[in-house]
C-alpha cells in the first residue's frame, strides 16, 4: 500500500500567463511513513497537496493511490463556514460512510471545542479550526493524512495528543516549518524548482532547505 508520484507536471494558465508549478516531480510514500515536504512560500506546496489529495489532476504524469488518503487538511479546506463544527463533522462522516454519532463524539472528545461545537465556523479562531479539521480527519481513520502548512496547534495538550495519535498512521506534511517536520516526521523532502528531492536523513533535508 502506497502513494506514488510518477513524473508529475502541473501548470496553470492564469490571466493569460502560463505558470509552471511542478516539472517532473516523482516520489514514493509507503503506508505508515511520516514524511515532511519542505518548501519556501510560492514553491507550489499547496498545489502539490491538492494533487496528492486527488482534488486536482496533474497536467501530465501519474499519481497512483493504493491506500486511503485524507483530503488536504488545512485551516478551512473541506469545511463550510456557515455551519457549526458538529454539522461539518456530520457531513464529512456521511460522505465517507462513517457513523455520524461516533464521529461527533470523537471530535467532541479530541478537539476540545466545548460549546463552540454548536457554533458556526466563522466564529472560530485559527487554532480552533485546525483542531476541528484534524479531529474530524482522525475520526474518519485514513491510512495516510495529508496536512497542508503549519498547523496552529503548537505545543499544546492537543498538539501532543495529535503527535501521539499520528504515530499510528501515515502522514505527509507539507510545510515551511522545519521544527514541525522534525517533530512529526521520520523522513523529509524538499520541494524546489518544481521537483521533489527526498532525503533519508532529516538533518540533511533541513540543511538543504536552509541553504535555499
Amino acid at each position, binding site marked *: 500500500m502506497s502513494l506514488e508520484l510518477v513524473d508529475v507536471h502541473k501548470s*496553470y494558465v492564469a490571466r493569460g500567463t502560463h505558470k509552471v508549478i511542478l516539472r517532473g516531480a516523482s516520489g514514493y510514500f509507503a503506508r505508515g511513513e511520516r514524511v515532511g515536504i519542505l518548501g519556501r512560500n510560492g514553491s507550489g506546496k*499547496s498545489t502539490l497537496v*491538492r494533487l496528492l*489529495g*486527488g*482534488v*486536482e*489532476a496533474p497536467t501530465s504524469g501519474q499519481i497512483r493511490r493504493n491506500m486511503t488518503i485524507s*483530503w*488536504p487538511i488545512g485551516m*478551512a*479546506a*473541506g*469545511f*463550510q*463556514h*456557515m*455551519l457549526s463544527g458538529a*454539522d461539518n463533522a*456530520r*457531513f*464529512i462522516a*456521511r*460522505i*465517507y*460512510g462513517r457513523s455520524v454519532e461516533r464521529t461527533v463524539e470523537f471530535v467532541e472528545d479530541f478537539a476540545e471545542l466545548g460549546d463552540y461545537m454548536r457554533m458556526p465556523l466563522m466564529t472560530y479562531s485559527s487554532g480552533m479550526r485546525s483542531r476541528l479539521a484534524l479531529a474530524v480527519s482522525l475520526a474518519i481513520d485514513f491510512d495516510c493524512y495529508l496536512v497542508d502548512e503549519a498547523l496552529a496547534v503548537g505545543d499544546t495538550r492537543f498538539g501532543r495528543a495529535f503527535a501521539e495519535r499520528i504515530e499510528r498512521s501515515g502522514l505527509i506534511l507539507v510545510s515551511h516549518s522545519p521544527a514541525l517536520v522534525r517533530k512529526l516526521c521520520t523522513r523529509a523532502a524538499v520541494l524546489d524548482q518544481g521537483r521533489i528531492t527526498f532525503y533519508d536523513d532529516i538533518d540533511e533535508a533541513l540543511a538543504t532547505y536552509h541553504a535555499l
Partner: protein
Amino acid sequence: MNAQGELALVVRGARMQLRVIGALIIREMHTRFGRHYMGYIWLYFEPLLLGVCIGLIHAWRDRPMTFGPFEFHAVGYILFFVFRGILNRATMAINMNRPLLYHRSVTLPDVFFARHVIEFLSCTGVMLALLFGLFAVNGNLPESPIKMALAMIMMALFSQGLAFLAAALAAAVEGAERLVHALTYLLLPASGLFFLVEWLPEWLEEMALWIPTVHLFELLRDGQFGSRFHAQYDLAYVWGWIMITHLLGLAALRITRARIGLE
C-alpha cells in the same frame, strides 16, 4: 478485470455517489434555512404563496373561461417555479460549495443533483397541497396525475441541463449570473405559463412550439384538464433538449472543475 468485478466497482461507485448526494441534501437544507422549522416551512410557502397570488390576480382580472383562471395559473406557476428555482440558484452553486470540493468524492454534478432534488421535492409537495386544496373547494380532480408528474420531472431535468450550462457560464464570465436572472424573467411570458397553444393565432402557434417549456405546460394542462381543450406537445422534442443540455452542461462543468482553483 472480469465483468463481475467491473459491475461490483460500478455498484460501489454508485453507492458512494448516493451517499455524497444524501449528505449534500442535508447540508444544503442546513445552510439555506438554518436549523429552524420556519426555514423548512418557507421552502413550501414561497412557491405556494407566489402561485396562489398569481392565480388570484388572474381569477380577478380574466374573463371566464372553460376552466377557472385560478387553477390554471396557480398550478401552472408551480411548474414554472421548478424552472426558476433550479436555474436562478445555479449560478451561486459552485462558489457556495467550493470548500467541499476538497473531498475527492464530492463532484460538481453532485452539488447540483442535491439542490435539484430539494427543489423538485418541495415543488411537488406544493403541487400536491394545491391540488388537494382545489379538490376540497370545488371537487375537481386532475384527469391524469401521471401526465402532471411527468411534466414536473421533465421540467426539472430540462432546468438541470440549463443549470449546468448557466453555472459554467457564470464561472467563466463575470456578471453572467445577472444575465441568467434577467433571462428567467424575460422568458416568463414565452414559457407557456400564461397561455394554451390553441389560444394563439396560427402564425404564433408554430413559433411557440419551438420553445421546449411550452410543450411541458401543455402536458401539465393535459393532465390537469384533459379533454377540456386540445393539447399540443411533442415529448420527443423536449427529451432531445434535455439530452443536449445535459451533454453540453456536463462537459462544461468538467472544464469548469479543471479551471477553478480551490483557493
